[in-house]
């Protein structure tokens, strides 16, 4: 592991559970370090806990889901222990978030100008006019034409892509240290997806901002991420530098994910390869590796005991196959 001097956010053994009698775990002992100016992509299928882990960072989990253990360290403080007011000052100011669905993530009956300026005013003492001027600058920067006029308009008067641009402007208006993007392009159509990704990447580089990028789309990852973390059934399965992961995937699940990507070069496959089966529903009682039931290389041991997360030259993997080799 690289030295943590550059670390800006450190997650240690994060546990998130559904607040029912069984305390169904959805994120199980997730740990990682986000470095300054770097982009970490968290990849996984739906239900693997990737969005919930992201919401945990700002402690905005939906009712009924709670953090049951671990630490999230930002600036020498554990976010999970912060009192309400300090937490509020952190949200949107130091750590900002862009959500999946721009159609529903903006208040439908509030002008976007108000929604932008209120964010600025919640964290900084400045006049309304200055906040407005700043909001207009940001809107221009994310590519909303006629920004001054459109400040007075409501979300329904914008297209989906424009709304996501507005969400990005809102997240960036206080120059946060960390941007968390929770599937920011999933709800948009493909041509817009690329534009939005490019925009986020550009702004991230300009500002030397760190980012956590939540996605189920590996194709996106290769363009934006420095590091990739593969999540499955609430566990970290593999984590490596982006180029390393694409070149030498170690976990059968990661291999399966990469194998199911369409490639423009090479021979056209008869049928796109896919991973058989479905991800486990949260709460499925299990011993051993959560991927074992779908794993083509599963051994007896895989069903009996959870493999440890081991690391070699910065490449982490949780698989018995790798243990044997090591």
């Amino acid at each position, binding site marked *: 592991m690289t030295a943590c001097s550059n670390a800006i956010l450190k997650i240690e053994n994060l546990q998130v559970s559904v607040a029912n009698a069984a305390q169904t775990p959805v994120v199980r002992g997730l740990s990682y370090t986000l470095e300054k100016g770097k982009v970490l992509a968290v990849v996984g299928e739906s239900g693997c806990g990737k969005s919930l882990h992201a919401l945990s960072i700002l402690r905005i989990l*939906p009712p009924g889901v709670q953090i049951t253990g671990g630490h999230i360290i930002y600036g020498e403080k554990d976010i999970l222990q912060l009192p309400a007011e300090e937490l*509020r000052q*952190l*949200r949107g*100011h130091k750590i900002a978030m862009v*959500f999946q669905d721009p159609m529903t*993530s903006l208040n*439908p009956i509030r002008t976007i100008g108000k929604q932008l300026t209120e964010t600025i005013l919640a*964290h900084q003492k400045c006049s309304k006019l200055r906040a407005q001027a700043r909001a207009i600058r940001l809107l221009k920067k994310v590519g909303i034409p006629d920004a001054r006029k459109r400040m007075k308009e409501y979300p*329904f008067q914008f297209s989906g892509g424009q709304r996501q641009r507005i969400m990005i402007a809102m997240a960036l208006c206080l120059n946060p240290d960390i941007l968390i993007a929770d599937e920011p392009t999933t709800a948009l159509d493909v041509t817009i997806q690329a534009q939005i990704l490019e925009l986020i990447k550009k702004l991230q580089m300009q500002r030397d901002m760190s980012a956590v990028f939540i996605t189920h789309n590996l194709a996106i990852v290769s363009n934006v991420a420095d590091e990739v973390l593969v999540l499955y059934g609430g566990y970290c399965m593999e984590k490596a530098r982006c180029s390393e992961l694409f070149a030498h995937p170690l976990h059968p699940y990661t291999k399966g994910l990469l194998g199911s990507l369409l490639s423009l070069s090479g021979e056209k496959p008869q049928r796109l390869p896919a991973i058989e089966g479905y991800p486990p529903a949260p709460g499925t009682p299990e011993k051993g590796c959560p991927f074992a039931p779908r794993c083509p290389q599963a051994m007896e041991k895989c069903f009996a005991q959870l493999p440890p997360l081991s690391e070699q030259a910065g490449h982490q993997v949780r698989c018995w196959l790798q243990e044997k080799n090591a």
Partner: protein
Amino acid sequence: MIKYIFRRLLLLPLVVLGVTFLLFFLTQRLSPEMRASLYIKDPRQMGSLEEVIEKYGLRDNLFKQYGRWLGSAVSGDLGYSQSANMPVAQAIKEYLPATVQLAIVTIVLVVFFGVWFGVVSAVKKDKWQDHLARFISVGGFSLPIFVLGLLLLMLFYGKLGWFPPGGYSLSTDVAIHLPNFHHYTGFLLIDSLLNGNIRIFIDVLRHLFLPALTLCIGSFALMVRVMRSSMLEELNKDYVRTARAKGLPEHAVIYRHAGKNAIIPVITLAGIQFIRLLGGTVIVETIFDYPGIGRFGVTAAQQLDIAGIMGFSLMVAVLFVLGNLFSDILYTAVDPRIKLND
């Protein structure tokens, strides 16, 4: 918007025609003699029954009689109310403002407490605040209004002596009929201020309080329910999560974001309830001896004052249409997505 209002106003005559014709038709079930006898005060004049029938054309066919009523109604003459001893139009002018005043104060209380309790209930879901708010609202809803009214009267007037019963004090009654008191609007609350007479204002307000409170407790349960469920729905929406993630203070998240969205259905409800208050404060007006239009309507109905009944229902029909139109317009003010065209 203007076009929409205009089109809705075009509906007004249709509604009025329908309502009044229906009622007129019902009164025609009484024989001409029965209707004529209503005009006769002294039993010794019974012989002149035929003259009255002749004079008012009570034997003419339904449409002819209705046409006659309609003709004079359009020209502003709604007939003479036997029960109120004055022309119907004058009776409405005299009694309606008191009821409108009561209805406005009530609806303000209902919306204020309904929204407040509803929001608290939703934010503190399943905690004691929620249970308390729901208990109070359902309790008020379950108590018949005449029981509630009498209880409040007993407590605040009988025991504590804080609030008086009745429309207004004798001194106010005298003062407002003096020639130097100008009736600008007919609303005593406003007129007393315009006349610079704060004493009358306070007196009227004190007399308004108990009936308004009774009506409020009786009808705010529904408001609490609607606001609570609407608020619960909004609190779960994505934009509320966004507002939190932006680092807005919790009260801004709840009131500025979720609350404003949640209040939209409450506006329709408030509109409906307000109109119902205008025509339906009868019981409360009777209990508190409040000189409103509801009492006029009931007396007219009890005494078979046909002109009075017709005038009263005409007024209620007009208020209904206008009230609905008003709450539609109010919508556009709250929700930018709603545009009143076509």
